[in-house]
């Protein structure tokens, strides 16, 4: 399993160092940036799984960076990366604005590290759950499309086969000409049916391939819980305070 990458963007080096030590110990890959511009470059270079962002920063503020990630088309690849925002301001208006922009959580400084970890866990888990729902939706759509093709095929197969049965019943085998004609009809119908069957086979194969890769990316809810528990088993030993 790939380690989750967490990017911390904060202009206070002491916070970066603290998160670096704590989160690395918990099995995350920790990336760090001291301002919004450097943060953006790290995002493009590493595509993190979670961004923890200080609101007040020189150059590009947390708000500005979030706005760019969520709204700017040039950053559309990174739109779904969850964001946790830190702020020293406990202002309801700020929180609401943050959530409206699309951040996933908002934490007021000074914070308790255990609480931050619990929130990181919740955000990562929610994000993984949404991803799993999307995967399952894709699989449902695939099955749906296969069902439609099957219905189409069975409906269109029936008429030519019934036609052949009828022609065969009416066939006068002593008349060479009608036998020839019947043979021709059988050949045409068989060719068409085989072509349709070939198309269906291709579709089944394509569906199976993409279904396989979708399944491979799917996790059961139990596995999901285990995955997150693993990261946080040291939680109690490592809890601490940070300004």
């Amino acid at each position: 399993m790939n380690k989750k990458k967490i990017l911390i963007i904060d202009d206070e080096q002491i916070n970066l160092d603290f998160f670096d030590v704590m989160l690395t110990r918990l099995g995350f890959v920790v990336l760090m940036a001291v301002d919004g511009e450097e943060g953006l470059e790290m995002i493009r270079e590493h595509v993190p799984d979670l961004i923890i962002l200080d609101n007040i920063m020189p150059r590009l503020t947390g708000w500005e960076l979030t706005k760019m990630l969520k709204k700017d088309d040039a950053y559309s690849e990174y739109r779904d990366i969850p964001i946790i925002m830190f702020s020293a301001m406990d202002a309801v208006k700020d929180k609401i604005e943050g959530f409206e922009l699309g951040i996933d959580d908002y934490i007021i400084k000074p914070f308790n590290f255990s609480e931050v970890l619990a929130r990181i866990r919740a955000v990562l888990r929610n994000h993984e759950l949404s991803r799993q729902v999307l995967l399952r939706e894709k699989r449902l759509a695939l099955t749906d499309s296969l069902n439609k093709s099957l219905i189409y095929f069975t409906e269109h197969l029936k008429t030519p086969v019934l036609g052949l049965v009828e022609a065969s019943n009416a066939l006068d085998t002593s008349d060479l000409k009608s036998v020839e004609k019947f043979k021709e009809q059988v050949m045409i119908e068989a060719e068409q049916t085989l072509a349709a069957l070939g198309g269906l086979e291709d579709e089944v194969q394509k569906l199976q391939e993409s279904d396989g890769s979708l399944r491979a990316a799917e996790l059961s809810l139990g596995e999901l819980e285990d995955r997150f528990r693993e990261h946080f088993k040291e939680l109690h030993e490592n809890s601490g305070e940070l300004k």
Partner: protein
Amino acid sequence: MITEAKRKAIKLFARGRDFYKKRDFQEALKYFSAAFKTDPTDEPSNVFIARCQEYIDNPPDEGWDGVYGMKSK
């Protein structure tokens, strides 16, 4: 804040990422190179130029998910 050159580079970079994720490293390399030429301070473009060159010589495994694996260390 974000210069015009940087904006252009970021757009080119995003196009490059699309090709990169589809494993079309030759095409991706063109866009990353164009991005780096537009803004020579754009480090991510520089990083992806190097990754493309490496993957053109040594293609990643079938199951590659777009994440660069560090070989050394």
